[in-house]
């Protein structure tokens, strides 16, 4: 076997493994959507039987068996109902009376999924108290029939194509770009299948629930003249909306409502009476899968490139590279987990909606809605202005730090002690500093932190005090890096102390100054501790810096999406400010001490 043949086989095998992984992941998710859809339909079905079946006369907690039997049979034969259904009263099947009875133990603890069917407890009616379980509703996912059953999905042909292209590329008949394109196609195709399954699960539930509602409208036990929406509300399972509408489209469709995508179907609840059943479409939650499947598929070209490199490169060098990567891996992993991943998660949170919890698993994609909300928030703009005002302490501190550094740069015991004194606050916990400052601010006649006019000033002075030492140390190091001969030369040239500083020392310190300013401004924008401990953003938002606003939006309003969007906005603003600082200050700072 020649090297290139072996390489072709290895490449094709790698491509096949990756393609199978992509397909497998997509298939698994499709299965989850099918199952979730069936479970949802089963819940609505159980709710349907609970509201349409009259109660047992003997035991008011139970449903009337005769009615239940008739209605179960009726549902199984309802036109348009395609989901195999079984209703158990107790453990006895009603639709297929000769079928397996339910194991008695399962009635107490209904498993959500068994043998390809979703099982949901069927409850009797109750007034306030939790209703007893009287049976089980079982639903199997509907399988597409007819021509649709022949369609294998987009994933399989794309996978075959990707493996073929990879093999051809290994043989030298396709370029590396083709491999990437094929991998992207595979990722997109697999995602299309997942999205299709998600869409189908929403549509199936809408269709089934529409049928159930229309049936219920005619079957609700009397006495009543007209069905009301609240009668049918249990069928929506709480997660969907049911409103009167004038639409007559009985096919599920997608619409935009208040900036969000919704899945809608219209149900006819009587002559000329139509209601819209709306739910969040399941495919809105599949964005992560697009990213994940694409990333998985792109492992193919990555592996291809690695194999190609390994093929061309000497074994020793490959080993060396492998060792290097092994050494890089821990740091890389750390960086990925604690820097890259949080950033990506922030990005994800910023463009997704949420209806409550922080780690809610599924969130619909809502684009720039969060950002728009943040930008329109006057408190955010107030915070940005406060932050800008607050950041003004940075240049002042920098100038002071430079002055102190110039005085204390020479070695000596006194200078050393004084330097340590200046650096001490840097090493002290911010909270401790703030608490001590708080007790100081309470002294005297004036409540410095209580007045909107002075609170920010207190925070600025505190920040300046703690930052001064750090900046001074950087300047001392920078000053010591400047060779004395430049200053000697300037003295012989006739420059006085002032000229020596402005014409020689300061220009040579420019990179240091830039560094101190840029990190200072970044630090100022990120400042949170003092405000959190001292003022909580008050009084009257006078110290409500931007990071505290982010905190409040996230943890007080529990709007993590908006908080993330604001974080990103701040990031972009900081980037712009930093770029500006570089542009203004760094023009001539590339200096080498020749």
């Amino acid at each position, binding site marked *: 076997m020649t090297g290139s043949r072996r390489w072709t086989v290895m490449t094709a095998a790698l491509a096949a493994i990756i393609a199978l992984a992509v397909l497998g992941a997509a298939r698994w998710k499709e299965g989850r959507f099918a199952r979730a859809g069936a479970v949802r339909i089963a819940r609505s079905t159980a709710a349907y039987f609970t509201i349409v079946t009259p109660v047992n006369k003997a035991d008011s907690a139970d449903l009337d068996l005769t009615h239940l039997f008739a209605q179960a049979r009726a549902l199984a034969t309802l036109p348009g109902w395609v989901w195999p259904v079984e209703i158990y009263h107790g453990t006895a099947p009603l639709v297929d009376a000769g079928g397996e009875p339910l194991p008695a133990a399962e009635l107490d603890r209904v498993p959500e999924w068994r043998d390809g069917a979703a099982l949901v407890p069927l409850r009797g009616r109750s007034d306030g108290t939790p209703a007893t379980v009287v049976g089980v509703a079982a639903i199997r996912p509907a399988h597409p029939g007819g021509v649709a059953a022949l369609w294998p999905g987009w994933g399989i042909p794309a996978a075959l194509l990707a493996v073929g292209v990879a093999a051809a590329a290994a043989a030298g008949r396709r370029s590396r770009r083709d491999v990437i394109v094929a991998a992207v196609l595979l990722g997109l195709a697999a995602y299309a299948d997942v999205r299709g399954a998600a869409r189908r699960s929403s549509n199936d539930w809408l269709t089934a629930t529409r049928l159930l509602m229309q049936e219920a409208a005619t079957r609700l036990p009397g006495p009543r003249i007209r069905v009301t929406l609240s009668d049918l509300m249990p069928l929506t399972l709480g997660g969907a909306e049911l409103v009167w509408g004038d639409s007559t489209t009985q096919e599920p469709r997608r619409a935009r409502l208040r900036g969000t995508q919704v899945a809608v179907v219209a149900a006819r609840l009587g002559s000329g009476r139509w209601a819209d059943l709306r739910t969040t479409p399941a495919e809105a939650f599949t964005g992560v899968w697009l990213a994940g499947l694409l990333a998985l598929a792109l492992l193919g070209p990555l592996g291809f490139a690695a194999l190609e490199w390994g093929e061309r490169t000497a074994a020793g060098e490959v080993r060396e590279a492998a060792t290097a990567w092994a050494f890089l891996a821990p740091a890389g992993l750390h960086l990925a987990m604690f820097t890259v991943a949080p950033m990506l998660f922030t990005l994800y949170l910023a463009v997704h909606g949420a209806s409550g919890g922080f780690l809610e698993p599924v969130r619909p994609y809502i684009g720039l809605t969060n950002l728009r909300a943040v930008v329109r928030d006057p408190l955010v703009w107030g915070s940005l202005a406060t932050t800008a005002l607050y950041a003004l302490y940075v240049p002042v501190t920098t100038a002071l730090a430079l002055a102190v550094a110039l005085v204390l740069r020479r070695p000596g015991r006194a200078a050393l002690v004084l330097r340590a004194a200046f650096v001490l606050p840097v090493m002290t916990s911010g909270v401790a500093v703030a608490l001590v400052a708080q007790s100081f601010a309470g002294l005297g006649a004036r409540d410095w932190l209580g007045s909107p006019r002075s609170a920010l000033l207190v925070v600025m002075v505190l920040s300046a005090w703690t930052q001064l030492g750090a900046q001074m140390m950087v300047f001392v190091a920078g000053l010591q890096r400047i060779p004395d001969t430049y200053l*000697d030369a300037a*003295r*012989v040239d006739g*420059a006085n102390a002032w*000229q020596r500083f402005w014409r020689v020392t300061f*220009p040579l310190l420019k990179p240091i100054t830039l560094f101190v300013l840029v990190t200072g401004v970044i630090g100022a924008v990120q400042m949170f501790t003092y405000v959190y401990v001292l003022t909580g953003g008050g009084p009257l938002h006078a110290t409500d810096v931007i990071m505290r606003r982010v905190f409040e939006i996230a943890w007080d309003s529990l709007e993590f999406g908006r908080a993330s969007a604001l974080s990103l906005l701040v990031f972009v603003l900081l980037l712009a400010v930093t770029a500006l600082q570089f542009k203004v200050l760094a023009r001539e700072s590339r*200096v080498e001490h020749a």
Partner: protein
Amino acid sequence: MASVTLRGLTVSLDGAGPAALRDLTLEVLDGELLVLLGPSGCGKTTALRCIAGLEHPTAGDVLIDDRVVTRVPPADRNVAMVFQNYALYPHLTIGENIGFALEVRGASRADIDRRVAGVAARLGIADLLARRPDQLSGGQRQRAALARAMVREPAVFLLDEPLSNLDANLRVELRAELVALHCALGATMVYVTHDQGEAMTMGQRIAVLHEGRLLQVGTPAEVYQRPADVLVARSLGTPAMNILAGRARGTADSIEDRMFESGSLRIPVALPTYEGEIQIGVRPEHVGVCAVDKGAGNGDILIVELLGNETVVHLNAGGQPLIARLPGLVDVQVGTRVGLKVDRRHLHLFDASGVRIP
């Protein structure tokens, strides 16, 4: 132009430890190029910095043109200095570097431009004025540093090992240029170096320093031919002068019969009075070889260096290392024993402490 006088100059750099300069008295004549020669740490740079005003003497005075400037700041001494690493301001262009001294003194823009252009043209760096120091070669930087010193037309030029960072060829070239420049400017220059070649070729006079003390000052010929000290003797000439330590022995009445013995060498030495332990210096070119037992002693050949125009032979004369410099290519074999001749007319006699015996 001006003269520079150092009067009893003593410098202790950090209070403790040996003084960097000890009681240095030296006069640099008007228009003279005086070389301060010595190994690193001998105090020559400290002396230069005292003249510049960058260092303050613990004792003694610096006079420029008979004016005591010991406490006068550098700016008011009318001296210019060229630093070993050139010290061109890295953030300024060459033109700005050269013009810096004029600018801080408040000269007009036109005046600065004219003078910078003039001095740059003179040193052949007119086309480099817009560049930055890190874009220049070593030789170009050297010229720029010189130009920066020249532009002010100072009374005294102070040059601190200005050529030591350059490669050998460039050093030889620039040293000739510097001498020519000195002649053309007629300026007083104090030139610090540890390179005896530079000292010999450039200096009108050489002042040899050692551990902060002035050992000798004189023209290159004087210092070479009549070194006042063993250290001076060894610091000039390549290979360095042979120093033989031994006893002068003989009878008090017959001066001619006194014999100096060192290793296998027995050299008749004329001393006015009996001294005992002495040292004799003899330059390698004044040592010759002859047949065994026909000279002042015998030596074993250790190393032979054939240089073309001469042959340098390293010998072991009964435990006393000795170097002979023979004209032309001489056919001698390593490991053989030869007789040694010493030219008695060119002996340098030093006492046990190393001071020349007149």
